[in-house]
């Protein structure tokens, strides 16, 4: 059941200036994890944090991605004050879930693994939810499911398209069946959005796996992916384990799923904004009353 609980002290009250870009590395060098090239911070930023040599797309935080995609000052955040509680009193050998939540909120200055709201792209309105992998591996628990569902319901209410950007290691095990059920909850909301004849654009970023892939991420009317993202149901290690073989290089990435007919396009980060603008123009503004 939806329940509201006591507030832990480390929860972040939403600040006014959430769209301010993160500290820029400037002259500092950044090493590409894929091709090992040393990239100059300033150039790397200019290149939208994409390796200029091999096009490896570095992860972006939710706010960085929002700034990249939407019209300046158009983003209005919703439900930033919703936070996870610990419904199962979950404790593992590494850590207690409640402690993990406190630490994550403190160190990342983010309340959860998804930021939701509405904005415009080239003046066209949309509702959007952008996941952030830094918060417990972008795992989906009650709050991620709730915020994504509310974003979809906002789309229905405002009669605008919905964009969800995924970055996730899968369902959040610390919330047990509550997490699994978020797959059903979000998919059901999308089914309602579909009945309202509103489009859902799904953007897959590195990594998009497990219960997130097997629910809303793969239900886009249009599904886009950044190049080279890990996109799969089971992780590579699990696949290797079940098949007793080593996976070839480049398996279960964006290009793989495109080749196998599972997504619509692989889009370089520098083209994402204009691609979304085009999709918004194509899929809205149709007068069905005639």
């Amino acid at each position, binding site marked *: 059941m939806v329940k509201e609980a006591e507030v832990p002290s480390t929860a972040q009250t939403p600040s006014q200036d959430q769209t301010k870009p993160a500290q820029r590395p400037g002259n500092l060098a950044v090493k590409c994890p894929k091709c090992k090239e040393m990239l100059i911070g300033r150039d790397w930023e200019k290149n939208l944090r994409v390796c200029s040599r091999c096009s490896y797309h570095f992860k972006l935080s939710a706010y960085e991605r929002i700034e990249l995609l939407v019209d300046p000052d158009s983003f209005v955040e919703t439900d930033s004050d919703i936070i996870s509680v610990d419904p199962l009193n979950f404790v593992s050998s590494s850590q207690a879930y409640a402690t993990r939540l406190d630490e994550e909120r403190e160190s990342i200055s983010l309340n959860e693994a998804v930021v939701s709201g509405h904005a415009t792209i080239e003046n066209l309105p949309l509702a959007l939810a952008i996941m952030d992998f830094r918060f417990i591996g972008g795992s989906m628990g009650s709050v991620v499911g709730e915020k994504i569902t509310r974003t979809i319901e906002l789309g229905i209410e405002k009669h605008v398209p919905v964009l969800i950007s995924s970055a996730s290691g899968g369902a959040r095990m610390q919330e047990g069946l509550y997490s699994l059920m978020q797959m059903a909850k979000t998919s059901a909301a999308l089914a309602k959005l579909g009945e309202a004849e509103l489009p859902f654009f799904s953007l897959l970023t590195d990594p998009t796996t497990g219960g997130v892939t097997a629910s809303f991420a*793969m239900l886009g009317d249009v599904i886009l992916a950044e190049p080279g993202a890990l996109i799969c149901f089971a992780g590579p290690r699990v696949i290797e384990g079940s098949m007793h073989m080593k996976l070839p290089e480049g398996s279960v990435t964006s290009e793989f799923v495109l080749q196998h007919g599972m997504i619509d396009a692989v889009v370089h980060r520098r083209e994402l904004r204009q691609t979304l603008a085009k999709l918004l123009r194509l899929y809205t503004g149709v007068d069905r009353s005639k």
Partner: protein
Amino acid sequence: MGYELEFEKPLAELEKKIIGLQRKGDRLRPDEHKQLQEAERELRHRTEEIYSNLSSWQTVLVARHKDRPYPADYIRLICDDFFELHGDRAFGDDHAIMAGPAKLDGDTVMLICQQKGRDTKERQFRNFGMPHPEGYRKAGRLMEQAEKFGFPVISLIDTPAAFPGLGDEERGQSEAIASDLYLMARLRVPTIAVVTGEGGSGGALAISVTNRILMLEYSIYSVAPPEAAASILWRDTAFAPQAAEAMKISARELQALDLIDELIPEPLGGAHHNYRSTADHLKAALLKHLAELKQLSVEELLEQRYQKFRNIGRFGRVQAPVAQG
């Protein structure tokens, strides 16, 4: 059936004693006869004691028991005229999913089940109840068919997980599951899911987005296999029992959390001790819920189902900042 699970040792010893005495038949002395009666009473009592207090992990062991009834057994015992349908009309036929129309108490329902397989040969044939994408697409096709003809959909769930192979990624395992979730959410017929054994994460949820979710008393429903959770959060699969406890995956725990609609009682010692009795309870529960759901209009069914899943989740809110000064 025997008592082979580790925590059933005291029961196994009592059973051994009982069998030893029973073998004597007519040659039983009066005091031995009394011993036999006491042993039988003691066995019932100890079984009740143990089974009314099963831990999450012990429940896992019963849910995975090699002699536990499978959906095919329940179909045989509670339905008539089951006709299995095959194929996804695109790629192939997945044998982990067994589905088709049947008569339940005179009315046609569409059954969608996962079947693990009893012996080695059957287990391989059914891929241990772990469906491929074509299995989920077969399920989707038959759910749409059920909607076309107005048949209620009944899912009997017993799977360790959806199969995680490379071919499954190629054929879109995640898309197949997601599509079933989407389809089931708006299906215009009454739908009921019963977890009879293992509710193995997304692979189980794919056929479980229903108006009612029921679980047999010693079944489990988990976001991830305990072994996988142990591997990630305890860094060792040997901690599967701890992971099971932490995730609270047993039917009883899920009922206590209000996450399921009904717990169906099993006979003393688990379903494998009495297939008939378990099947009778299952049938009664299905008929009861079907009767209730049939009272609802299609719109009411859809809204009830939407709200059921809409309301699952636990969260809090940040307090308003305290004024400084």
